[in-house]
C-alpha cells in the first residue's frame, strides 16, 4: 500500500502551491467534529480515497488494477443463492438514509439506489449519476455468475472500478448481507419491476 501512495504522489497533477490531500485532511481534522454515528475516523482517507483524490479519479492503469484486486479481497460472499426478495429490495433502493449523523445508529439503512439509478419503470423520480438499470436482469439473465457480479458490485464497487463514485455499500457497513441479496433480487428476479 505504501508503494502505491508513492507512485500516486508522482502522478499527482496538482501544482506545487496547491494544497495536497494531506493538507486538506489536516484542516478537516481541525475543523470537523464527530456527531452521532459519524466519527472523526471518517475524515481519514484510505488508500482508494487518497489515490482517487490525487489522480482526479484517473489513476494509472496498473495502480487501478492493484487497488481493485485489493478491494476485491474485501468482498464476503454468503453461501447459497444470492437472490433475495425483490420487494424488500425495492424499498431498500428507495430509502436514502443510513450512516448520517442524523440517522439512528443500528437502524436499517437504505441503499439510496434511486438517487443515482433508474430501476423500476414506475418510479419517475430517479437519478442519473449511475447508469440506468432498467431491464438489467432481462438482458443478462440471473445465473450464478451474474448474481455474483451484482452482489460484489453492490458490496464493493471499487473492486470493479477503483475510483467509481458508487459507495462501497457492504464494505462500509451500510447494508447487511441480507439487504444486498434483496437488491440482487430487485435487479435480477424476472418478477421484479426492474425487468418488466
Amino acid at each position, binding site marked *: 500500500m505504501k508503494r502505491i501512495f508513492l507512485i500516486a504522489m508522482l502522478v499527482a497533477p496538482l501544482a506545487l502551491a496547491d494544497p495536497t490531500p494531506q493538507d486538506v485532511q489536516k484542516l478537516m481534522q481541525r475543523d470537523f467534529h464527530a456527531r452521532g454515528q459519524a466519527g472523526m475516523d471518517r475524515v481519514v482517507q484510505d488508500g482508494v480515497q487518497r489515490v482517487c483524490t490525487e489522480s482526479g479519479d484517473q489513476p494509472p492503469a496498473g495502480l487501478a488494477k492493484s487497488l481493485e484486486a485489493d478491494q476485491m479481497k474485501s468482498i464476503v460472499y454468503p453461501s447459497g443463492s444470492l437472490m433475495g426478495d425483490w420487494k424488500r429490495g425495492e424499498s431498500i433502493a*428507495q*430509502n*436514502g*438514509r*443510513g450512516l*448520517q449523523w*442524523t*440517522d439512528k445508529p443500528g437502524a436499517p439503512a*437504505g441503499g*439510496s439506489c*434511486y*438517487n443515482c439509478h433508474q430501476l423500476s419503470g414506475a418510479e*419517475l*423520480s430517479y437519478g442519473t449519476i449511475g447508469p440506468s438499470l432498467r431491464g438489467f436482469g432481462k438482458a443478462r439473465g440471473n445465473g450464478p455468475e451474474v448474481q455474483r457480479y451484482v452482489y460484489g458490485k453492490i458490496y464493493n464497487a471499487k473492486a470493479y472500478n477503483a475510483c467509481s463514485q458508487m459507495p462501497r455499500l457492504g464494505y462500509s457497513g451500510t447494508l447487511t448481507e441480507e439487504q444486498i441479496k434483496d437488491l440482487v433480487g430487485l435487479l435480477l428476479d424476472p418478477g421484479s419491476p426492474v425487468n418488466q
Partner: protein
Amino acid sequence: MRSKVTPGDQSPLKNRPNASPVVSGPQPVNGLAAIVLKPFAALAATWNKDGFGAKTAADALKTLGASNPVASRDVVIEAPQIAENGAVVPIEITSNVPGTTSIAVLIDKNPFPLVGKFDFMEGALPFVKLNAKVGETSEVRVVAEALGKHYVATQEIKVTIGGCGG
C-alpha cells in the same frame, strides 16, 4: 354568532334532499350576508365546517350545493403536472365563466379534500393563485359558481420525491 349566519355550515342540500342532481340551485350569497350582519368581517367570518371536514371531494361538494357540476373548459387550472414536493404545489385558477362569484379548490386524495373557497365581489376577478399541500398523486378539482350554476375542471398532479431522501 358564527353558526347563525354561516350559510356554508348548513348545507342547503341537507334541507333539500331531493335537489336536482344535474345542476344545483342558487345559493345564498355568503359575502353579502357576512357584510350585512358583521361589520368586522374578518374577525367573525364564515367557515364551512362541514365542507372542510368532509373526507371525500363528493361530500365536500355537497356542502357547497355543487354535487353535479358541469365540466367546463372555461375553468382554467394552471398547475405543474409534476410537483417535486407535495408540501407546496402552486395552483393558479381563472374562471372565464361569465358571472363567476366563487371558486372552490379540492385535492381529491387529501384526507380533507376541500382546501379553499373564494368568494369574489365588488370588482374582484374570479382568479386566485395559492400553494396547496398535495399528499400523494391526485386530481385537483376546481369548481366555479356562476349565476347559481356550478362548473368544474380537473387536473392530475403527480407528486414525486426530490433530493437525496435522507
